[in-house]
């Protein structure tokens, strides 16, 4: 019997039955779902909004809802029914193997993090950027140590990396210097790390590139959620403004709440407050879209400038405090278009970044930058075997730096107010225009892909040379690929370092090369072996209490072995072992010494299982050789102030003990009809011999000790989404 005759027969003595099919846990409508009645061969199909309508004769009927993507549901109805029938379906468990290797990109070494991994990897506190710290090539830093916010990738110094969100450079990565990144995870779709030898699409960096993309998929229905963790609350909403096509909007925000619950202390007169927000409005499809966006972050606190415990009571009463405010706002528009032949993307944005630090004793710093930025990316396949990619970027900004009355106490706040600590009074503004044109050709056949490229940078500060790039990928077999990449890279100091200089500015340049093998086993298990080498000329050194200066050279090399396996939404594991060295000079003409990110051995394992009934268990282990630091070797006693100024020993001549950390994450997702609830508990364990956060010295710097972090810490959190 055909579907039409069946329905006509049913309609003869029928009562109307209507309803909606939805996904259990989110309430999303399920379109294209087949509904069969009483075992009939044919049935009706739900529409784009998950609705169905049919007429059934009085009496009992069996309705069967089925789809390959959902568990089948059988409903027994007694017709007539008084209300619409809402049916909720469970998605079937997928076994999609995700293979990251063999991507045809000139960024031959590439690590990808997506939201699923960020949410389910322990120790990351749902923070995408923290997950980057579990990737090979990224120095394993001590959790909550002062240096943790400074990503060192393949030995790079923190200032040598660049971070982007949707094509706009992010002024800073972390709240409160280290706790949580400024990217809310639920807004991030993917985050890519290019540790070195990146393509011509990126520049003004001799370190690494982190390029994050936000979620830009049009929602089918209203979604949102709230979350709470040990230190933050968050909320988000995502909704279509029209049901069929048209604009959609999203907004999210996070805020710390300890300041609401805690009283100010002598050490923290203003308890730390931080938050971030994101708002978007978009229209279109994957092929053609426009999006308006605004996002930003802010941090504020006041702390005692020194360690009050080390001061006598009268000193502690009058000890200066330091008030810190930092925040940035970005607003812009993104336009995308994609066809079978190619794609095009334009991003225009306005960026405002402001830092203000003030000591109550004397000294303040104001660093403020406003910039208009533009980035264009174009890709086009001319014919089979030739593809061109290119684009350009431009940044025009004005930076103002005002350092007033720097005094003796300024050295205490060098990490938060570096210009104040450098001690050079200044009140000036500096305009700067920079940008680049870049192009890349992909010449390929079934086996070989040859990708030469060039980047033509420009900067109002000085003339820059073209930067050649080359990447080659060769599919040696169905499951094996060899890759080579190299190039020449340039980077100028950031604008805020230019105010104190009167001499000619030089660029840091770097020759970089990498080679590797990608091997899959049975199409599932990925094994990657990467090697790299970098040679730097005139790298910049940013001391905490003196103007920036250049040394002659530095170099880095390493070998990284990675194993990876992933079943989407079910299981992922990766492990790595890296052997690497990074050297630089402490002063021009001096001997090479270990760089701050020099970590001879690092290793780790990350695994996550999504079990039945909504359970998820994750485990992470990381190990890293101790990072170097410069010891204090006595002091000079300033008899007029009765204070001691440290005399430092050989740069980076001492090392922290090796570091290990274990993280365990247990989460239960409870899917209700139109919303779901996730509750998690995490625990971290750091062996006591690894629990040093940073060295500290007694009053005259002749006795060194360690500030120890916690060895065990439980964390709780939860989120509700609809």
């Amino acid at each position, binding site marked *: 019997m055909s579907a039409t005759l069946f329905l006509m027969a049913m309609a003869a003595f029928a009562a109307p039955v209507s309803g909606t099919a939805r996904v259990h846990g989110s309430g999303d409508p399920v379109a294209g779902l087949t509904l069969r009645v009483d075992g009939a061969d044919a049935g009706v199909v739900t529409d784009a909004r998950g609705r169905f309508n049919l007429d059934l004769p009085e009496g009992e009927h069996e309705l069967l809802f089925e789809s390959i993507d959902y568990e089948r549901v059988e409903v027994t109805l007694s017709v007539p029914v008084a209300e619409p029938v809402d049916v909720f379906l469970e998605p079937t468990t997928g076994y999609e193997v995700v293979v990251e290797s063999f991507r045809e990109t000139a960024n031959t070494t590439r690590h990808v993090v997506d939201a699923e991994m960020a949410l389910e990897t322990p120790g990351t506190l749902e923070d995408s950027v923290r997950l980057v710290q579990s990737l090979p090539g990224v120095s394993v830093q001590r959790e909550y140590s002062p240096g943790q916010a400074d990503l060192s990738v393949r030995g790079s110094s923190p200032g040598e990396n660049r971070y982007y969100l949707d094509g706009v450079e992010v002024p800073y990565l972390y709240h409160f210097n280290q706790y949580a990144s400024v990217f809310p995870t639920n807004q991030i779709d993917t985050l890519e790390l290019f540790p070195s030898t990146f393509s011509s699409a990126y520049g003004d960096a001799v370190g690494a590139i982190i390029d994050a993309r936000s979620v830009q998929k049009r929602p089918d229905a209203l979604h949102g959620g709230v979350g709470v963790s040990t230190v933050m609350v968050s909320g988000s909403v995502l909704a279509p403004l029209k049901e069929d096509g048209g604009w959609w909007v999203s907004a999210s925000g996070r805020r710390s709440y300890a300041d609401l619950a805690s009283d100010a202390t002598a050490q923290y007169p203003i308890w730390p407050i931080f938050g971030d927000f994101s708002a978007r409005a978009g229209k279109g499809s994957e092929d053609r879209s426009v999006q308006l966006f605004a996002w930003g972050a802010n941090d504020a606190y006041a702390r005692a400038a020194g360690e009050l415990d080390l001061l006598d009571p009268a000193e502690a009463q009058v000890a200066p405090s330091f008030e810190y405010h930092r925040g940035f706002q970005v607003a812009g528009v993104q336009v995308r278009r994609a066809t079978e032949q190619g794609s095009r993307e334009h991003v225009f944005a306005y960026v405002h970044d402001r830092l203000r630090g003030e000591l109550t004793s004397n000294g303040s710093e104001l660093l403020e930058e406003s910039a208009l930025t533009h980035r264009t990316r174009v890709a086009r396949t001319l014919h089979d075997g030739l593809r061109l990619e290119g684009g350009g970027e431009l940044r025009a900004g004005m930076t103002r730096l005002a350092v007033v009355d720097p005094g003796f106490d300024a050295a205490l706040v060098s990490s938060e107010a570096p210009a104040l600590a450098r001690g050079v009074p200044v009140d000036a503004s500096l305009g700067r225009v920079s940008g680049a044109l870049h192009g890349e050709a992909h010449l390929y056949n079934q086996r070989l892909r040859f990708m030469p490229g060039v980047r033509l940078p420009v900067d109002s500060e000085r003339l820059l040379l073209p930067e050649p790039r080359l990447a080659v990928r060769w599919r040696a077999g169905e499951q094996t690929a060899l890759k080579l990449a190299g190039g020449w890279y340039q980077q100028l100091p950031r604008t805020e370092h230019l105010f104190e200089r009167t001499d000619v500015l030089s660029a840091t340049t770097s020759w970089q090369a990498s080679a590797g093998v990608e091997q899959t086993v049975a199409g599932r298990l990925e094994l990657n072996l990467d090697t790299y080498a970098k040679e730097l000329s005139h790298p910049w050194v940013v001391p905490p209490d003196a103007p920036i200066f250049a040394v002659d050279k530095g170099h880095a090399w390493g070998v990284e072995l990675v194993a990876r396996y992933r079943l989407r939404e079910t299981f992922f594991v990766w492990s790595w072992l890296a052997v690497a060295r990074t050297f630089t000079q402490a002063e021009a003409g001096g001997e090479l010494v270990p760089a701050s990110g020099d970590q001879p051995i690092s290793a780790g394992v990350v695994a996550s299982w999504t079990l039945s009934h909504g359970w998820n268990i994750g485990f992470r282990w990381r190990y890293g050789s101790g990072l170097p630091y410069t010891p204090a070797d006595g002091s*000079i006693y*300033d008899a*007029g102030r009765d204070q001691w100024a440290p005399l430092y020993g050989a740069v980076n001549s001492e090392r922290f003990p090796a570091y290990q950390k274990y993280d365990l994450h247990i989460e239960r997702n409870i899917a209700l009809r139109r919303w779901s609830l996730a509750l998690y508990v995490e625990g971290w364990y750091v062996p006591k011999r690894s629990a040093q956060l940073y060295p500290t010295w007694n009053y005259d710097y002749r*006795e060194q000790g360690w500030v120890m972090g916690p060895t065990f810490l439980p964390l709780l959190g939860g989120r509700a989404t609809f």
Partner: protein
Amino acid sequence: MLLSILSLLACQSPFGTDRHHLEGFRVAAARAVPDADGWSVSAALVVDGHLWSDQAVALRWYALPDRAALATLSVSAPADAEGPVAHLSGATVGVGLIATGPAGDERRVWLEPSTTAIALRDVTVERVDGVTVDALTAEDLTVDARSAWVGTPDTSVPAGGAATLTAVTEGDTLRTARWMEIGEPGELLEIDGTRSSWLAGSILVDGEEVLERTIAAPGPVSLLVLALGEAGGTDFRAEELWVGPPSQGLFTASGRWIGVEPAVDADAVRGTLVADDAAPTGLALTDAVAFDPLLEPLDPWGTEALPCVGVSGPFDPSWLLDGRCVRADLIGRVVGVSR
């Protein structure tokens, strides 16, 4: 400095010493006094935890443009002046000192001299009755609470008791006084720029909770006080007080305590210097007799014959504090002391 909320859980290992306690080899203070054509420079030296030494400390003084120059200065660089109580000619932005102790330890000191001098004339000690270490709470130790303690002038403090110390200066306004003690017999808790509490014992507090109390042993306690003037001048002075009843035969010589045997009640006493490691000055006077210096016109004090001073006047135990005299050269010398 910790910037993370969660890292507030971190704890810090305690150090063996803090700046209040004078131990080992240390330059505890320095001063530069303007004179006719430059500066008279000297330093307060602590050697092996004493305000005296049996061996000389090598002191090399330099006129330098900034502190950074001192940091990179070679110890073999020719000094502009050497020795204790040296003279630097002419004007200078800063004074650098490289002190090398008897064991070869080196200390570097920086001082920016000021033409506006400050003089630390006296240190008053007032015993605070009714305050004992055994009964103190964290609330009692606040600056406001200790500021209200009422004392009686007395350089003797009962074991477990408390005293208020006050620096008395002349010349420039006192910006702040720094207080130090030899060893760790007690505990110094500053009140303000001129005063400090001193406990004849110690108390360890964590927040509102008292974790530990100790009582000081009877005996002499040496204090070193540094005065920092508003204009940048400095001065220093040693002072003694006694935990418990003071022993017999104590003589205050030029403000410093020295044991005298036998006890002599006179304004001027002559005797033979002997070593006494337990004494604050490292010295005691034996075969002591009263004498009238006016009746002995030729070096009545015996100090002209001392190789380290060669001046006429009462013997001053503080000559060991700035290193101009070493104890070994004074043993067996007959000198006179005056109140």
